């Protein structure tokens, strides 16, 4: 009876859980207003990431490519970046922020994107675009390091590092959400408002859920401004909700500008949301208002209806982004469920030392496995060949066939969730997220009971 943390034994990857670093940097960049990123590499590195993001949100986002072709790969492709910046600036007069996101190919050939940026600042910008505010931000995201998660973490830090500027201390705090959905941001901002806390939210992505308007073209993009990013250095503190998606930026602000940082825990479930509110209270001195006590009460009430009757002892496998997976596992335990297998999809060596992982190891009283550097084969293989019995799978859409082929109910959560409608609109964080998760898990189990005629009559009198 133990919780074991181990690395995937195979060296290769079958059905990856994550894509690579440049995707994370691209996802971060679309959160910024008047920003279009240029990915320096082959065109697929952009085309497919745009497709992936559009699959998840059912929206299109603008990202450009330096379109490195054969000659560039052989002789160096820095000139492609120069041309890309110029073409982009000419045709998109509102664009102010242009991250230059490297990829495996351009890192291997050793293109000096920092040097290109210096050159563009010295030559192109003052001569062709005098008076125009333009920020070129090199972001090194070789695909052979880390994953989309580290790419996101790094990009957030690079954006903050580029803009953050100490002026007057402000009353604001920085809230770095990590890789979340518009529904999360809406709910987090609601919690902040109830706490009467003024915060800079990185990133303001509520408008990723953009309208179809009777007139005018509505391109989806985030709303975080340059001023927001600048002001992060003046904040009285930073809360990074996700350790691995934004933690780097929080620590940067702390070490560079002395902005105190609280990193994690991801406010998934009641307990972690309580901690989040506690952190807000400590950082700002503001009390937790009665309205949130009540909101929490509604959540607890809803959960009480579900836990020991329906959720208790249900065996769950969870895969996806590390903070999400760990947060969900913690929450499932509070809901009396049994996370049996957690899959963390990259080779980050810090997972084993994550205090939350340590706590699982110290306290879980049944067999649980945590696999790092995992792929989805780890899940399918355990179900099909190694006797893992599950009642529920929590994860993103790329694992859908494991659930489908093994007749295991699955709740889509994380990124991407393209095979279910509108999930980006709902939070998994905060009290609202706790309700949504528990009720969706229950409804998923209920539907499965009915399809399989498995004690479906239980629900007659609930």
């Amino acid at each position, binding site marked *: 009876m133990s919780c074991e943390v181990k690395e995937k034994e195979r060296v290769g990857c079958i*059905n990856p859980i994550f894509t690579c670093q440049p995707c994370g940097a691209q996802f971060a960049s679309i959160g910024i207003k008047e920003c279009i990123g240029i990915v320096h590499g082959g065109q697929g590195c952009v085309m497919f990431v745009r497709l992936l993001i559009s699959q998840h949100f059912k929206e299109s986002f603008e990202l450009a490519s330096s379109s490195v072709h054969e000659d560039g790969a052989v002789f160096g492709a820095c000139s492609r970046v120069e041309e890309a910046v110029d073409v982009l600036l000419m045709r998109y007069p509102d664009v102010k922020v242009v991250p230059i996101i490297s990829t495996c190919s351009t890192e291997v050939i050793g293109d000096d994107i920092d040097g290109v940026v210096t050159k563009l600042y010295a030559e192109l910008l003052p001569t062709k675009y005098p008076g125009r505010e333009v920020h070129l931000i090199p972001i090194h995201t070789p695909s052979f390091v880390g994953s989309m998660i580290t790419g996101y973490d790094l990009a957030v830090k690079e954006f903050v590092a580029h803009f953050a500027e100490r002026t007057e201390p402000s009353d604001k705090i920085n809230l770095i959400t990590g890789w979340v959905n518009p529904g999360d941001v809406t709910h987090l901002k609601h919690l902040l408002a109830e706490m009467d806390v003024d915060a800079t939210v990185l990133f303001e992505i509520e408008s990723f859920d953009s309208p179809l308007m009777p007139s005018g073209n509505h391109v989806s993009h985030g709303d975080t401004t340059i001023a927001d990013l600048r002001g992060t250095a003046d904040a009285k503190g930073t809360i990074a909700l996700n350790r691995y998606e934004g933690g780097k930026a929080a620590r940067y602000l702390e070490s560079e500008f002395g902005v105190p940082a609280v990193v994690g825990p991801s406010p998934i479930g009641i307990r972690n949301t309580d901690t989040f509110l506690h952190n807000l209270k400590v950082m700002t001195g503001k009390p937790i208002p009665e309205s949130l006590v009540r909101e929490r009460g509604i959540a607890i009430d809803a959960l009480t209806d579900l836990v020991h009757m329906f959720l208790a002892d249900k065996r769950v496998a969870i895969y996806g982004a590390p903070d999400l997976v760990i947060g969900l596992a913690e929450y499932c335990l509070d809901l009396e469920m049994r996370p049996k297998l957690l899959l963390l999809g990259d080779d980050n060596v810090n997972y084993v030392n994550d205090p939350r992982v340590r706590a699982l190891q110290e306290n879980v009283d049944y067999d649980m496995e945590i696999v790092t550097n995992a792929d989805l084969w780890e899940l399918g293989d355990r179900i099909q060949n190694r006797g893992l019995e599950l009642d529920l799978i929590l994860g993103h859409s790329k694992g859908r066939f494991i659930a489908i082929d093994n007749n295991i109910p699955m709740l889509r959560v994380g990124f991407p969730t393209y095979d279910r409608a509108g999930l980006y609109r709902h939070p998994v964080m905060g009290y609202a997220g706790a309700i949504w998760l528990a009720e969706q898990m229950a409804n998923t189990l209920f539907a499965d009971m009915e399809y399989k005629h498995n004690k479906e009559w239980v629900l007659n009198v609930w």
Partner: protein
Amino acid sequence: MPYHEFKCSRCIPERKQHAVFKGKGETITDALPLGYLNTIPGSISERGCAYCGAKHVIGTPMKDVIHLSHGPIGCTYDTWQTKRYISDNDNFQIKYTFATDMKEKHIVFGAEKQLKQCIVEAFKACPHIKRMSIYQTCASALIGDDIEAIAQEVMDEMPDVDIFVCNSPGFGGPSQSGGHHKINIAWINQKVGTVEPDLLSDYVINYVGEYNIQGDQEVMIDFFNRMGVQVLATFTGNGRYDDLRAMHKAHLNVLECARSAEYICNELRKRYGTPRLDIDGFGFEPLGSSLRKVGLFFGIEDRAQAIIDEETARWKPELDWYKARLTGRKVCLWPGGSKLWHWAHVIHDEMGMDVVSVYTKFGHQGDMEKGISRCEEGALAIDDPNELEGLEAMETLTPDIIFTGKRPGEVAKKIRVPYLNAHAYHNGPWKGWEGWVRFARDIYNAVYSPIHRLALLDIGKDEIPTDKGFETQRMLSDADLPDEVRNDPVLREYTGKYNCLKDLRKKTYPPFERNVLAEAV
């Protein structure tokens, strides 16, 4: 002025050579967009890379194969589950994807050892699969791993497996088209001629450039089976690896998507003397003509005619029901490469729609020659369009619908233009007579969507109609139709099933005829 300058692209004047209006009385010799040239960096082109052209478009539809990409994880992840190329072996190629997960240490020290381990692991993980395709990526190309040598080593050690290697890194060429070429040539060089097939029929073809999107290939195979024609191999949708090794034994190569697969047909013609017959599989008349040509080749055109007669009788009243309601509707036909010419004339002829624009993301000038020839006058042809040009074109052309990819479809949505997925389809298959009706049905449902109509209403400015609790597609489409069309007793809406493949897969056919002609062909 045949060449068209987009306002948004005035600052990149070379773009002017990439867009052409088909003027009155003008032909492709008057103006032709440039094509397959290096992309302008930063233009927000829709193009992909040569890796995806090889691996994702052509390689992966092969169904009984472990598809392993040698590189960092992203290339594999990104090209996984973004298409609808299904198969009749439970979609193994959709469900499983394999990567060598190249890391920094491999970039420094090489990843050949890693590659070999991954190959062995993958075969061990999937003991029922004995075939593998390995795809090079940017990273493995740049560090210079010798993938062929490793593959050969494994094949020497594991005699029951066979491995194909495709060296098509993402940076190879202006678009995915570079990858189409590379994998065509790699396949014929490495694999064709290494299996001797059982020829079961006197009439044996390869069906080339068909990727079984939503079951297209299976629809076409049904016709060929009914004609007694053995399809030795399909390149590559729903295709078997070993069948494709035997392509040299077919009597005829029937080529559908010439953009992606003409190369292998040309090589088969050169090396084995197998003729290449280009066909259209979409639309009643083109498909019928295509089957008849295959029939003529073998002297069995009566069998094709029997199918044409049967299918036309069954489905024509349904196609015409939609034609009556789609006539005059404007469409931007904006696919990847081949559908601009496969569809341009036939959606006009058979559905009455006006193609106001064609574009190609990755096509060559040859595709534009075909596409523009098949368009009516006034159509705007665009090569390698970019985001702003697409928006500008939609705003000036005001199409009723656009056929394009998933993500550009979201752009169209925002300016209130309904879209159908030209690559993966909405509710396909769209090949075959029934499929063509399904396409018409999908177009109809998009164009006459009551929600689409509601999207056009500005409740802040417009008079809000309060007299209706609902509208149907039929109320919208038939409002201005003459009574005799509306009440035509012959015409009817689509009557097929949601999943028309289920019954197809259960069908059985009489055995092929062999030696009737004593090796005539």
